[in-house]
């Protein structure tokens, strides 16, 4: 790779050819503010929008200012990042953006996390000299999981980029032009009427409050203070390694014990673990895999834990709905068991039990409302909160996380194996299923680490020997890769017998409900959270789901065996073609 010599603020520097001015400046710790700059390290090629013009710099010999994010360094370039001209231009850009942005910061969901707000503060903007008409209506649209506030959109295009390039869902698009430019689904339908799967990746990269999530915080406070309700909570694996980020802990730090204590303080009667549901999922799913392999029917088996993925296949590939595992997702299995087995053993009426799920995910909010996810007349899960919601509730009542003792999950639905922890990372469900299938068929599973399906690559494959027979497996993340797999299946070129699909890049650890990271979707963030979960896995006594003593007890006392009639009633579901207004 050849290099070029440049100077930034008179500091000489040698950088690789093709490096942007912004990257070069960051490499020597020179700060250039950005607003629309999206760093999708996990996607190798994506467009630099260069739409906001906040990152402009002055280049000697060039007439106009250059956007540093999209301008590449060339030999002999002399760059100045904070001349008076640059600072004036940046201020003007921010002032103009603010002149078309409702000043509702105090009540905005992105308050204190908004990039526009942060930059305005950093640039010392105290007044907006421009007055005039707003370009977009102050209209607020709520879908099942997402909220759109049209007026807060600054047209940076980050959501469009993620929706098309990362997820290949192509729901959000730019429409119209000039003053009327607008971002939304085609024909301006509501997100629920579009093919949106509610993955929430757009929310994660939106610099302002234009895209945010719906929240059930108020409803949950309500039931927590209702003495006639028995409110139980369950927490997804990916939450425990990300929640700490909201309280100043390093990336990927697992604060499981403190989180459990905090949940008790919030008022939940029982603090259970979605991990238990994950172990249960593996019992059923590995059994299903073994049967399908034996019969050679409905292959490849595709995982069904991810509701974003399920929405995707239901609308995009409805003729292949016999392929996903019929297993409910772990938190739904948990809910079904909480309102049946647990209700009975704790002598509770299921109508008084409220199941709250803390998820790293927005699609789970939508999933929980599915009509096929109920038993005995009760919805399996009542409310879904995100990692961010939980952090907000903890902050709301002023819990000092640092000062908390480590708590442990309640039983019988709180014990889990390492196989459950890794549900939160791409490849984890597949790995957990393989561990269990091998143990079931061979009587032992010595090597539980399937390194080939780990990591943040979008498309991973491996060959695994089960009971002397070789099977091919794949783990994909990001819906763009899911589409690749489905096209292979459609064309009859899919060599795999078992496939795991996660809608979000990297898996649930990078879900749409996780703490915001300033439009970054980097290997560092995903990698650290990933490490956190593999460490949880390593620290567990048992690392194969069927070795969970409470799972064994549950089968003995209630479910009989994997795939039994009772198990089917409570733990399995069905999928159906999703009709959307937009084709």
């Amino acid at each position: 790779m050849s290099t070029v010599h440049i100077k930034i603020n008179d500091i000489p520097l040698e950088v690789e050819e093709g490096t942007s001015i912004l990257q070069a400046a960051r490499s020597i710790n020179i700060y250039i503010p950005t607003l629309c700059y999206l760093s999708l390290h996990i996607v190798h090629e994506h467009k630099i929008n260069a739409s906001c013009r906040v990152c402009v710099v002055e280049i000697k010999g060039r007439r106009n200012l250059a956007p540093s994010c999209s301008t590449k360094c060339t030999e002999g370039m002399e760059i100045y990042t904070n001349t008076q001209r640059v600072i004036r231009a940046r201020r003007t850009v921010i002032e103009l953006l603010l002149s078309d942005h409702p000043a509702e910061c105090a009540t905005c969901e992105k308050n204190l996390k908004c990039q526009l707000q942060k930059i305005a503060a950093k640039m010392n903007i105290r007044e907006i000299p421009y007055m005039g008409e707003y370009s977009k209506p102050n209209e607020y649209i709520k879908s099942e999981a997402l909220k759109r506030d049209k007026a807060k959109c600054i047209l940076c295009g980050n959501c469009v980029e993620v929706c098309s390039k990362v997820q290949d869902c192509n729901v959000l698009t730019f429409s119209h032009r000039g003053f009327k430019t607008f971002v939304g689904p085609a024909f301006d339908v509501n997100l629920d009427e579009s093919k949106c799967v509610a993955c929430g990746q757009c929310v994660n990269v939106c610099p302002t409050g234009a895209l945010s999530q719906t929240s059930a915080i108020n409803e949950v406070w309500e039931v927590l203070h209702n003495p006639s309700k028995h409110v139980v909570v369950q927490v997804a694996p990916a939450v425990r390694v990300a929640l700490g980020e909201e309280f100043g802990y390093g990336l990927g730090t697992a604060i499981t014990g403190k989180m459990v204590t905090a949940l008790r303080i919030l008022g939940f009667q029982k603090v259970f673990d979605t991990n238990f549901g994950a172990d249960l999922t593996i019992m059923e799913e590995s059994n299903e895999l073994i049967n399908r392999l034996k019969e050679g029917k409905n292959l490849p088996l595709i995982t069904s834990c991810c509701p974003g993925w399920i929405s995707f296949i239901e609308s995009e590939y409805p003729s292949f709905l016999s392929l996903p595992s019929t297993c409910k997702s772990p938190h739904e299995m948990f809910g079904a068991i909480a309102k049946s087995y647990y209700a009975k053993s704790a002598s509770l009426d299921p109508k008084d039990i409220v199941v709250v799920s803390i998820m790293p995910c927005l699609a789970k909010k939508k999933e929980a409302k599915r009509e096929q996810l109920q038993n005995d007349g009760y919805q399996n899960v009542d409310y879904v909160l995100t990692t961010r919601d939980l952090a907000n509730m903890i902050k709301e009542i002023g819990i000092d996380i640092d000062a908390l003792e480590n708590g442990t999950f309640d039983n019988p639905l709180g014990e889990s194996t390492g196989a459950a922890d890794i549900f939160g990372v791409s490849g984890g469900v597949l790995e957990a299923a393989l561990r269990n299938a091998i143990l079931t068929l061979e009587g032992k599973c010595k090597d539980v680490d399937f390194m080939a399906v780990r990591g943040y690559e979008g498309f991973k494959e491996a060959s695994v020997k089960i009971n002397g027979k070789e099977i091919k497996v794949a783990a994909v993340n990001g819906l763009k890769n899911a589409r690749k797999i489905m096209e292979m299946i459609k064309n009859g070129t899919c060599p795999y017998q078992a496939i795991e699909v996660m809608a979000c890049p990297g898996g649930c650890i990078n879900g749409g409900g996780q703490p915001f990271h300033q439009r970054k979707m980097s290997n560092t963030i995903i990698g650290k959270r990933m490490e956190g979960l593999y460490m949880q896995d390593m620290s567990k006594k048992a690392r194969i789901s069927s070795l969970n003593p409470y799972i064994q007890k549950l089968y003995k006392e209630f479910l009989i065996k994997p795939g039994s009639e009772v198990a089917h009633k409570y733990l399995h579901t069905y999928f159906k073609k999703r009709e959307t207004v937009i084709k």
Partner: protein
Amino acid sequence: MENNKEKFDELSAYIDSLHATGHELIAVLHRAQHIFGYLPREVQEFVAEKLSIPVSKVYGVVTFYSFFTMEKKGKYVINVCLGTACFVRGADQIMKAFEERLGIHNGETTPDGKFTLSSLRCVGACGLAPVVQVNGKTYGNATIDTVDQILKEYEGD
């Protein structure tokens, strides 16, 4: 959309003749608008499906270019050029005259579906300013009398 099978067939045949590579969207939309007179949702969905591109992309392009329209147009589309040269030579008066006589505003269609009145910016015939186009036919050096002539010419049709 009523009785449109033939129109869809025509569009379909046109798209097939292109051996689509994914870069023909604008050409296809031009043809589609020529066939249907406008680009309603069904037509956009049809184009997206035929070209194997997301309908959101089609919608983005249709709404971006002012040439494309999602509104059904009248049989005759009267375009008054409001470009600089035409404007300084009284195009606004021409527009006003059309509005008064047709009883509609710029951008609207008469209730009988006969005329749509709209404006455009410069057709490259500034020497003939002010210019009016009706379904592509150009009328130069337009005056109020021209307005009446044009309406007379097409009204009986």
